[in-house]
C-alpha cells in the first residue's frame, strides 16, 4: 500500500478536472465575498501545472510536486497563487527524491504543506480561509491512519472532514484575505479557498482511494 509517482499525477489530474468543473461555482463564491476570480485563477493555474507535469518524465514525486508549485506560483496570482504554491512546495520538500510515499509519508507531506500555507498567510483555523478545509481534512487523515484505517478509508474521512470544514466557514466572519474587508458582511457565505481546498483533497480520495 504505497503511493507511486503515477498516483500523484492521477491525483493532480483529478484535482485539475474538479477545479475546471467547479470553475463557475468558485467564481460565484468569490464574487459574493471577494473579487470573483478564484475559479478562473485556480483553473488557469492547474491547467498550466498539468501541462508541465504531463511533459515530465520522472518518478521523483518531489520533482512533480515542485513543478506544480512553480507553475501555480507563476500563473495563479492573487492570494491563492502563493498559498497553493507554498503548499505544494512544502510537500515537494518532504517528497524530494522519493519515487513512492507510504500513507504516513503522504500525510506528513500534506501537513508540511498546511504549515506552509499557515505561515505564508498568517492564518489560523477559524479565519475563514482555505486553512479551514485543509486543517480538519489533514487532521482526520492522520487520525484515521493512526487508528489503523487503510489509505482509502483514511482519504474518505479526510474528504468528509474537509467538506465539513468548508461548510463551517459559512457563518464565520473573515479575518484574512479579501473577504475580511467586508467585516460582518462576510458572514453567511462559504469561503472560496476552503472550497477549492476541499476539491483538491476530495480528488485525492478519488484518485488514491484505489491505490493497492
Amino acid at each position: 500500500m504505497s503511493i507511486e509517482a503515477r498516483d500523484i499525477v492521477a491525483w493532480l489530474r483529478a484535482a485539475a478536472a474538479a477545479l475546471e468543473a467547479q470553475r463557475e461555482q468558485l467564481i460565484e463564491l468569490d464574487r459574493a465575498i471577494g473579487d470573483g476570480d478564484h475559479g478562473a485563477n485556480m483553473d488557469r493555474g492547474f491547467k498550466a501545472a498539468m501541462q508541465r507535469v504531463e511533459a515530465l518524465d520522472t518518478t521523483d514525486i518531489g520533482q512533480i510536486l515542485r513543478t506544480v508549485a512553480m507553475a501555480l506560483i507563476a500563473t495563479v496570482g492573487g492570494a491563492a497563487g502563493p498559498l497553493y504554491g507554498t503548499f505544494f512546495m512544502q510537500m515537494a520538500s518532504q517528497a524530494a527524491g522519493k519515487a513512492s510515499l507510504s500513507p504516513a509519508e503522504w500525510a506528513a507531506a500534506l501537513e508540511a504543506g498546511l504549515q506552509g500555507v499557515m505561515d505564508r498567510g498568517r492564518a489560523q483555523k477559524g479565519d475563514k480561509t482555505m486553512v479551514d478545509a485543509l486543517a480538519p481534512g489533514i487532521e482526520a487523515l492522520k487520525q484515521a491512519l493512526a487508528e489503523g484505517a487503510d489509505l482509502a478509508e483514511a482519504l474518505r474521512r479526510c474528504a468528509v472532514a474537509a467538506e465539513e470544514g468548508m461548510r463551517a466557514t459559512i457563518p464565520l466572519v473573515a479575518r484574512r484575505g479579501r473577504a475580511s474587508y467586508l467585516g460582518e458582511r462576510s458572514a453567511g457565505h462559504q469561503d472560496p479557498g476552503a472550497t477549492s481546498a476541499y476539491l483538491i483533497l476530495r480528488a485525492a480520495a478519488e484518485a488514491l482511494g484505489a491505490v493497492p
Partner: protein
Amino acid sequence: MKKLINDPQDVVREALEGMAAAHPDLIRVNMEPRYVVRADAPVQGKVAIVSGGGSGHEPMHGGFVGYGMLDAACPGEVFTSPTPDQMYEASKAVHGGAGVLHIVKNYSGDVMNFEMAADMVRAEGIQVESVVIDDDVAVENSTYTQGRRGVGTTVLAEKICGAAAEAGYDLRRVADLCRKVNGWGRSMGMALTPCTVPHVGTPSFELGENEMEIGIGIHGEPGRRREALRPADEIVEMLLEPILQDLPFRQGDDVLLFVNSMGGTPLIELYVAYRKAAQVLARHGIRVVRSLVGPYITSLEMAGMSITLLKMDDELVRLWDAPVLTPALKWGAAPAPAAGSGGAA
C-alpha cells in the same frame, strides 16, 4: 457586458501592447513575464522602485512608470495580483546598484506574492525593502485581521518616493519616506455602479437605481454598507468624516486633496465633489496646498469616487512638485531629452 475589447482573455496583454505602442519614449513593456519598465532602465546609482498589482486599475501602475516615479510595474490579470516571477524579473531589470523598493498594496495576494519575490531578489544579492500601503479607512484596523486595504495613497507614495529616488535618497531613506507617506495618507471610496471583470462577464455586484455602496475597495468587491443614493455633497461628507476622524489630520495641517474617479465617473462630477471637499476641509481649518483630480486608481468602468487626504510637509510638497514624466502623470522638466505625450521621436 459592453466593452471595447476582443477576447476577454487577451485584454491585459493587448492593453500592454497598446501602452508600449503609445509611449515608446517613456516605457518599455516585457511580455514574458509581464512587466513595464521605464525606457532608460536601469538607472545606475538610483534606488529602483517597483510596484504592481492586478490590472483594471489603470493608469495604476503601468501609467506611473517613468522619470520621477516608478522604475517598473507588474500587472497581474484583471483584479488578480501579479506573480513573484514578474516582480523578480522586473526588479532585476531595473536594479541600478542602489537596491529596490517594493511598494505593495495591502491585499493578501499582493503581499504574499511580493514577499516571495523579495526573497527571490534577495537571493540574487540585491537589497530589497518592501513597504505595504494600507490607507483605506473603510476597513477597521486590527492586528487580528488582514488590516486595511491599500488604495489612493499608493499613487501619491509612488510619485513622492519616485522623486526622492531621483533626488538621490538611498534605499533606507526612500523606504522610510514611503512609510511616512503611508502613515500620513487616508482614503475612502464609494460606488454608484459595479464593474464587470472581462473574463467573468457579469457585474461584480448588483446595485439598485437608487443605491450606492460605501466603503468599497478597488476590486469590484462590495463595500462596507449599502445606502440610498444621496446628493454629492452628502456623499463627500460621508467619505471625509472617517478620514478626518482617523489620525493624523488636525486644524492647521497642510494636505494634498486627491479626488479620484473609479473609472466611469467623469471629471465634471469629480469637480463637483472636489468643491465640497475643499469646503469641508476649510471648515476644519485644514489647508489644501496641492490637489489631484481625475481617474488615477480605478476599478475598470465602475462609476464612483474615492477621496484621499495626505498630510503634507515641506519635504512632501517639494517631492510632489518635482518633475515627473510618465504616461499618466507628467509635469516639470526632466533632465532627459524626453517630451511630448508619447510616440517615437
